[in-house]
């Protein structure tokens, strides 16, 4: 019910929303929970395991019960805490984990079966048959016991990420956080103040206190207003700091648009900030903890502080008659507040025999709550007095306070363990705090408002002092420092179930059972009973569980210890973690210079690393990619084909020692390569295994252009840079990657020279004599455009590679197509490129696979013995040079139409397909339109001696077994006459 006045809500405006289809109204400033309570709705969910009716117990992000599903379709979000869901017009919420409905839930039968559903029930019950677990038991259990569900529709919203920097990060904007921020801000430090609430102020929003002679909320608003005017301060409301990471880095989720029906156009729903702080003050406050007693989970039973928060901030009371059950003074303060707001507080039941008196209500000192009634919400509580007499009190709400736990979570994210303080019966941050973190206010156990203000100011000043920023502590406003006295009391005895963890349905009995069954470590207790798991991570339940366990073990809570605190502090949407990296933007994409043109040609693209390359160019009427690829290969081998090969790495190597440098990088000789010549080079890793191959063209005495494979462009550059900087710093060599700077096009086929002559400027003679195989030159094309020409061939045909500045790559392709129309010029993609290199027996990534040597590749003689080079010595290791090792050979299918699977293993005819009989493996396979047969390249033991023999290429995995003939890997033009033509 809504109280007649007060609250930080705008009563002049009304917001419509639905819960389980029922229409309700609330006001701006409401949360879903406060609005439902205002409408008399206490029942908001069903519990995880027993499907017990539940309502909110808290008013913040620690809420374990009131989990609802918001939105629909792609925007459906399960397990949202109604206590932090900001109300907006049109909000649509549904309950979860209930069938057919929240008020009547058939699965509540589980509650009747509770004697069987104790801790470890699944482990003990669903043991056999083992095969049933995944297919039957687990899906069944998940359906019966669970939280909300996602829709599996794509999320239509966008998420963002970003980086923020500050001198001081203040985590939490309650009294200590506001004072810390103010102190640092006035000193001129760069301050970020993050608060998870939409109205910063923390506890001040839920309190009748006065600060500096004005209402605490007004003081908070005034401080925020001042901070808002300062350019060195960034206030982040609706922002939860979810993790403390290395070196002062914090993760924070800003809920940019969750308070709106949907984000404004272009705006993200949430932003995940990485905050780099020099210092941080944790001002995260304290969380109240419940006391366990029989049937303490009925809707209407809440934390006492939450009752006060609902009354103050939202002018809501869950019922007209309430009672308080407490073991400390803050319960009395809550009762006083509620009475002042006109709520009928029937009694304060205080477990302490020496409980103080209170005006306006009866204090039952030494009393306990020993039972509750009410089908879907509390209707009465049973009070047992110190003298043992019991009676029932009719109340619709019961505020419970078992004390306050400083919110230590973030202080423990770097494996720090909190320390116990007897005077407040709680853990406080201590020991190993994250680097640069200080703690202030209730989070540090400073429970009074004055103490919090003083603590915030002092810690901010201390942090700034560390940074050499002089800061003076501002005059502290007048504030109360009420005495906080507590006598620890964790659970009321008895045989009925008393809940410790509401979210996971863990009772005192479950902890006892775990103890009885030998679970001593708190971490084991957590896993066995599920205490402290799931979305709330035990914010309200952990200490109660520890206390029961300590009691059973006859040791202190301190000695029992806590479980590990890990990020995130509150649940984080997967979308926020993904940020902008979703769908086609999951990773950046590289496009070739001819991408626009290739798209116009209808090319099919393939991802090669981050590159998108044209895979083939289908023509009308071609119904299978093989038709297209065969046509492209045939056209190139008989006429001329062009292919964008820009993706191959290009490294500019200059300097007086450039040739000597390459002579050490490549295993074959480069020192004597003539200017104007290109040479095929193979580079080895330090361990003698082949690393990459490519060409190096000598454009001048002191200038080479090295090419690499597409995949190894970066690793080779890194390798060369390492050699230059670390191995041979005395050499005069300069390296720059120029992969992107030049658009490079392969022009291949017997008519390639004729085509090129039509665009290369007449000053340059392309005849075989003037520009022979492996020539290179800086030339001009199309009337003066600077270009580089290399006479190299991957296809085995007469071929050239022509490079122009990248911006002209598109125009070059169009010009080549135009000028070569009468020659039948045909663009080809990576498939045809692959077919032609297999036909020619050229190694590529499949052969340079990180396990093969120059010798395996048939290039053993390239490893020069007349010089030293990286990997040369280790390539001569015994194990790598034994006779009978793997040698690169060709495979030809005995039945030409029978496909050889790449990766197939090579076996003798009739041999069983076992590792012992394995002779090698096929690396690259294709259909060769030139040979008219399926062919492959393979590494086969002593392959060179097996020419003409018949073996099998078998893939036991796919059941394929193909007879093959061992042939030379050079299927096409083994003498190399074509490329020298």
């Amino acid at each position, binding site marked *: 019910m809504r109280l007649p006045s007060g609250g930080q809500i705008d009563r002049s405006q009304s917001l419509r929303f639905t819960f389980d289809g029922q229409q309700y109204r609330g006001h701006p400033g409401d949360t879903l929970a406060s609005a439902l309570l205002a409408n008399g709705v206490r029942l908001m969910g069903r519990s995880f395991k027993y499907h017990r009716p539940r309502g909110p117990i808290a008013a913040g992000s620690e809420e374990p019960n009131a989990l609802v599903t918001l939105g629909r379709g792609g925007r459906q979000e399960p397990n949202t805490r109604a206590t932090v869901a900001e109300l907006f017009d049109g909000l649509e919420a549904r309950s979860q984990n209930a069938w057919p409905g929240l008020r009547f839930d058939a699965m509540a039968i589980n509650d009747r079966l509770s004697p069987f559903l104790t801790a470890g029930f699944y482990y003990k019950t669903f043991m056999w048959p083992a095969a049933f677990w995944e297919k039957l038991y687990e899906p069944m259990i998940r359906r019966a016991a669970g939280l909300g569900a996602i829709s599996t529709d794509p999320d239509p919203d966008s998420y963002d990420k970003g980086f923020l920097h500050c001198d001081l990060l203040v985590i939490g904007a309650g009294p200590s956080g506001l004072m810390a921020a103010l102190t640092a801000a006035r000193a001129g430090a760069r301050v970020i103040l993050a608060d998870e609430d939409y109205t910063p102020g923390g506890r001040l929003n839920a309190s009748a206190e006065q600060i500096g002679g004005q209402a605490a909320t007004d003081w908070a608003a005034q401080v925020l207003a001042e901070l808002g005017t300062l350019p060195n301060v960034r206030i982040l409301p609706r922002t939860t700091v979810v993790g403390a990471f290395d070196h002062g880095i914090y993760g924070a989720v800003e809920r940019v648009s969750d308070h709106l029906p949907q984000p404004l156009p*272009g705006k993200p729903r949430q932003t995940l900030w990485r905050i780099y702080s020099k210092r941080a003050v944790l001002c995260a406050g304290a969380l109240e903890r419940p006391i366990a007693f029989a049937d303490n989970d009925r809707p209407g039973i809440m934390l006492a502080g939450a009752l006060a928060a609902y009354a103050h901030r939202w002018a809501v009371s869950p019922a007209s008659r309430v009672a308080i059950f407490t073991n400390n003074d803050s319960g009395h303060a809550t009762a006083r507040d509620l009475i002042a707001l006109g709520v009928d507080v029937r009694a304060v039941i205080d477990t302490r025999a020496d409980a103080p008196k209170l005006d306006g209500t009866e204090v039952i000192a030494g009393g306990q709550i020993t039972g509750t009634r009410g089908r879907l919400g509390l209707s009465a509580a049973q009070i047992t007095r110190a003298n043992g007499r019991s009676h029932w009190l009719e109340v619709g709400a019961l505020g419970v306070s078992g004390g306050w736990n400083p919110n230590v979570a973030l202080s423990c994210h770097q494996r720090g363990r909190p320390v116990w303080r007897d005077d407040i019966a709680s853990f406080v941050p201590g020991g190993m705090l994250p680097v640069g973190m200080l703690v202030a206010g209730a989070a540090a156990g400073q429970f009074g408002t004055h103490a919090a203000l003083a603590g915030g100011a002092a810690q901010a000043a201390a942090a700034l002092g560390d940074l050499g920023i002089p800061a003076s502590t501002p005059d502290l406003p007048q504030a109360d420092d009420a005495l906080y006295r507590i006598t620890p009391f964790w659970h009321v005895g008895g045989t009925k179930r008393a809940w410790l963890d509401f979210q996971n349905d863990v009772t005192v009995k479950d902890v006892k059972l775990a103890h009885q069954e030998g679970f001593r470590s708190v971490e084991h207790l957590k896993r066995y009973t599920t205490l402290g798991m799931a979305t709330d991570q035990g914010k309200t339940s952990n200490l109660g569980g520890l206390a029961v366990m300590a009691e059973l073990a006859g040791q202190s809570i301190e000695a029992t210890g806590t479980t590990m605190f890990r990020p995130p502090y509150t649940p984080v949407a997967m979308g926020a973690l993904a940020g902008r990296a979703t769908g086609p933007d999951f990773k950046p994409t590289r496009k*070739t210079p001819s991408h626009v043109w290739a798209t116009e040609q209808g090319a099919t693209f393939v991802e090669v690393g981050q590159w998108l390359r044209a895979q083939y160019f289908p023509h009308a009427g071609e119904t299978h990619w093989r038709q297209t690829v065969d046509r492209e290969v045939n056209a190139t081998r008989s006429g001329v084909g062009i292919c964008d090969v820009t993706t191959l790495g290009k490294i500019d190597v200059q300097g007086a020692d450039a040739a000597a440098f390459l002579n050490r990088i490549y295993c074959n000789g480069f020192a004597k390569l003539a200017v104007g010549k290109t040479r095929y080079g193979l580079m080895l890793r330090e361990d003698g295994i082949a690393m990459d191959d490519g060409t190096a063209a000598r454009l001048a005495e002191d200038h080479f252009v090295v090419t690499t494979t597409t995949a190894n462009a970066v690793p080779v550059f890194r390798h060369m840079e390492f050699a230059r900087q670390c191995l041979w710093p005395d050499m005069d060599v300069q390296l720059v990657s120029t992969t992107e700077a030049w658009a490079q096009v392969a022009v291949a086929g017997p008519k390639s020279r004729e085509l090129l002559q039509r665009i290369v400027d007449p000053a340059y003679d392309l005849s075989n004599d003037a520009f022979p195989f492996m020539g290179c030159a800086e030339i001009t094309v199309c009337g003066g*455009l600077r270009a580089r020409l290399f006479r190299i061939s991957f296809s085995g045909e007469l071929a050239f590679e022509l490079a122009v500045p990248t911006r002209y790559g598109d125009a070059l392709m169009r010009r080549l197509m135009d000028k070569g129309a009468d020659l039948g010029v045909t663009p080809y993609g990576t498939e045809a490129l692959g077919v032609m290199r297999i036909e020619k027996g050229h190694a590529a990534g499949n052969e340079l696979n990180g396990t093969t040597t120059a010798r395996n590749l048939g290039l053993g003689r390239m490893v020069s013995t007349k010089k030293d080079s990286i990997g040369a010595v280790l390539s001569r290791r015994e194990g790598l040079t034994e006779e009978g090792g793997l040698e690169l050979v060709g495979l030809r299918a005995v039945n030409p139409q029978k496909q050889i699977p790449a990766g197939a293993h090579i076996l003798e005819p009739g041999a069983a397909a076992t590792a012992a009989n394995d002779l090698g493996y096929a690396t690259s396979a294709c259909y060769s339109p030139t040979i008219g047969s399926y062919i492959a390249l393979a590494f086969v033991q002593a392959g060179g001696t097996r020419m003409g023999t018949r073996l099998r290429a078998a893939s036991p995995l796919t059941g394929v077994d193909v007879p093959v003939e061992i042939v030379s890997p050079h299927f096409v033009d083994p003498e190399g006459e074509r490329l020298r033509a």
Partner: protein
Amino acid sequence: MHDLAPLTALGAATPRHDMIGGVTIAENPNVALASVAARRGKSEPCATALADWLGAPVPEVAQHSGDAKTGFWLGPDMWMLEAPFATHEDMARDLGTRFEGLASVTEQTDAWARFDLSGDGPDDMLARLTNLDLATLPNRFARRTVMEHIGCYLLRRGATYSVYGPRSFAASLHHALCLSAGAL
């Protein structure tokens, strides 16, 4: 004069120009680039020649200098030089002559796609893209940074920023710039 028509890094005949909120994102193909790396033992004469070409002091570490022609620091004894494309398309060849024996010069004009950011809020926009702390950097900073997993250079020129990303990544980089501007 050759007759091949250039495309911009984003694949169009004319550069892309976006105004999103208060931020302008302008593709800028009108810049010629060349890297200059001092030959071993030639740091000083190379620096002198560089200052001469720039008409300004050699850029400090992670900064740029110069006015009509500019240069920014890439690494020890290595700089990237910028000049107007229309007048300096063949800059690398000219610089090669000028720095003969002093430095290795490499044409970089089309290795990079450049986007200039101006208007209100490029700082806030860049906070979503780079972990550089812009508020603490000098006015003429030139830093290597990663944006959207792409290795970039970021330069501040007064109220304007230039982002250089590898040319093949232009579309992905542009997409990220636009998204970030829209998110403000």
